[in-house]
């Protein structure tokens, strides 16, 4: 079964440092997403990405965050200057399409646990 792959599984970084979280979406998917989940809380939307540009972003996704699809397979989330409150699980997801029809194939990766110290 196709899956979304995320690396690393756990990242520890010092406050103020830059981190890049990496994702390999399912190969025939066109829509890509980042979500985060602070420990014990619900999953929160960060950003959606289609056709090499951001489709929508939440208020969490401020100027410290950026996304990129550097090649045909990777999708990255960069946090420029990490803060303590950025500590969370970050999930990448991909889907086939957003329109009517099939069930979108919306699939999540296993996540990267980011710990900012």
């Amino acid at each position: 079964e196709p899956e979304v792959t995320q690396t690393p599984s756990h990242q520890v970084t010092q406050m103020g440092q830059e981190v890049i979280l990496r994702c390999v979406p399912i190969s025939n998917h066109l829509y890509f997403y980042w979500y985060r989940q602070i420990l014990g809380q619900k999953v929160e939307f960060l950003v959606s990405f289609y056709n090499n540009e951001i489709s929508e972003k939440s208020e969490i996704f401020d100027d410290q965050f950026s996304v990129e699809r550097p090649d045909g397979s990777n999708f990255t989330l960069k946090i420029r200057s990490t803060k303590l409150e950025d500590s969370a699980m970050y999930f990448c997801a991909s889907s086939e399409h957003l329109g009517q029809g099939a069930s979108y194939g919306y699939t999540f990766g296993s996540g990267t646990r980011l710990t900012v110290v």
Partner: protein
Amino acid sequence: GESVGLHLPTLSVQEGDNSIINCAYSNSASDYFIWYKQESGKGPQFIIDIRSNMDKRQGQRVTVLLNKTVKHLSLQIAATQPGDSAVYFCAEKGYNKLIFGAGTRLAVHP
């Protein structure tokens, strides 16, 4: 505004019993809902989905019911097994994103 919420934070059931997890949503225009299962340290795993033009959809041991009149969604798990122990989230599809509820922890006891 948009919101998707859950009635119960924790549900404890005996192995073999049926489980019912509930979810309320506020956006009456929502047309697609998904139930996810999340085990410790893992990402959300798709269980079942339903479109707003349906009232009920069945999968393997799971059934999702949608009541648009009261904006309520439920997930029924038949013959609950220890492997069903996890946190369950309902999610509502927005235009470019999923909006998740707070989650219900299902604990299955032998």
